């Protein structure tokens, strides 16, 4: 702890504005360089999250996404360019992030996050940022991070509304299931593909997630633990409400009934083996896709 942070000459310059910043300083920058973050999704939220974390010098930045860049993504997914249309998102993301900061390790996981691979994948990182676009992955990310004892920086968006919070592991701190015990059943909520999404919205919510990830890593400030930040782009208002720990929570409650990962498609009402149609997937609001 007392050892002076060691930086290369380039790092001293690249991160100069952090290093001179009270609260972060050389110690905080060293923590960032020694940290690892996995960003779930390289879409609307994942774009600003990954770009700000790469710029900030998070030492190892993982991106997991299985999708390819589509022209409809470019209205908000600023990691990707028109020339990337058709490419795997993680390839496009790794190129963009490497160009931004070649001094960090950037790892692309071109795969679907599932109950079979989540513990291994998430287990390799210190902090997980959820920028996914569907309920099964959100509940999977929650349960896996609770079981692994890792912080989960949550963000989600729909139309003009955004939500962000931080779920920390540990006794009597809330998780995603304490906030929303059940997802909406398929067919009850219009999809984002149908409903649309305001392009700047993920930029704001994703930037908040990046802020919270950096705060968790460096230990500064008061992260959004036990608080849900609600952003209303139409009225340009931020509201914070309390999230209480639920003693009856099946994952983080006093007597957990879910102690290993489950079938999250089934939990979210998606039939086994059925690939969700756009409308059904849209219940989970396919914005990032």
């Amino acid at each position, binding site marked *: 702890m007392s050892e002076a942070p060691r930086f290369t000459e380039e790092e001293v310059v690249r991160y100069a504005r952090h290093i001179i910043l009270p609260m972060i300083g050389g110690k905080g920058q060293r923590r960032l360089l020694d940290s690892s973050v996995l960003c779930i999704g390289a879409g609307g939220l994942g774009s600003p999250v990954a770009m700000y974390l790469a710029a900030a010098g998070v030492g190892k930045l993982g991106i997991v996404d299985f999708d390819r860049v589509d022209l409809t993504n470019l209205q908000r997914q600023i990691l990707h360019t028109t020339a990337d249309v058709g490419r795997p998102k993680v390839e496009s993301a790794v190129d963009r992030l490497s160009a931004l900061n070649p001094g960090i390790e950037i790892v692309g996981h071109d795969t679907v996050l599932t109950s079979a691979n989540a513990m291994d994948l998430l287990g390799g990182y210190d902090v997980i940022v959820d920028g*996914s676009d569907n309920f099964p992955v959100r509940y999977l990310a929650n349960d896996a991070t609770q079981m692994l004892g890792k912080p989960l920086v949550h963000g989600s968006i729909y*139309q003009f509304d955004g939500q962000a919070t931080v779920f920390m592991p540990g006794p009597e701190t809330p998780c995603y299931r304490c906030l929303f015990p059940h997802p909406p059943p398929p067919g009850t909520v219009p999809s984002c593909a149908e409903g649309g999404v305001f392009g700047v919205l993920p930029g704001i919510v994703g930037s908040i997630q990046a802020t919270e990830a950096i705060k968790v890593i460096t230990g500064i400030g008061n992260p959004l633990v036990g608080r849900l930040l609600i952003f*209303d782009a*139409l009225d340009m208002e931020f509201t914070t409400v309390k999230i*209480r720990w639920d003693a009856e929570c099946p994952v983080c409650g006093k007597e957990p009934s879910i102690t290993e990962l489950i079938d999250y498609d089934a939990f979210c009402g998606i039939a086994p083996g059925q690939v969700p149609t756009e409308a059904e997937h849209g219940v989970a*609001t396919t914005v990032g896709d």
Partner: protein
Amino acid sequence: MVTVRIPSALRPAAGGEGRVPASGGTVGDVLDDLIARFPGLRGRLLDDEGRLRRFVNVFVDGEDVRHEGGLARPVGEGQEISIVPSVAGG
């Protein structure tokens, strides 16, 4: 009279407004008053038995009503009620 904040996804069903005044002595009364004027909100907020849907949270002055008596939670003059549905977009 209380103020109910409507998320953008529900605004088309609530006359397009982000803040709607409503009256009632409990959260349930307030939602009933709202639904009486905007019937399209019923299915979005309540299940067939009239209970708050599990993926919709209601907060009174920042506190989740589920932990404070649910729909029976009393509300007072000037309080703000926020409807916060679960969203998954990214």
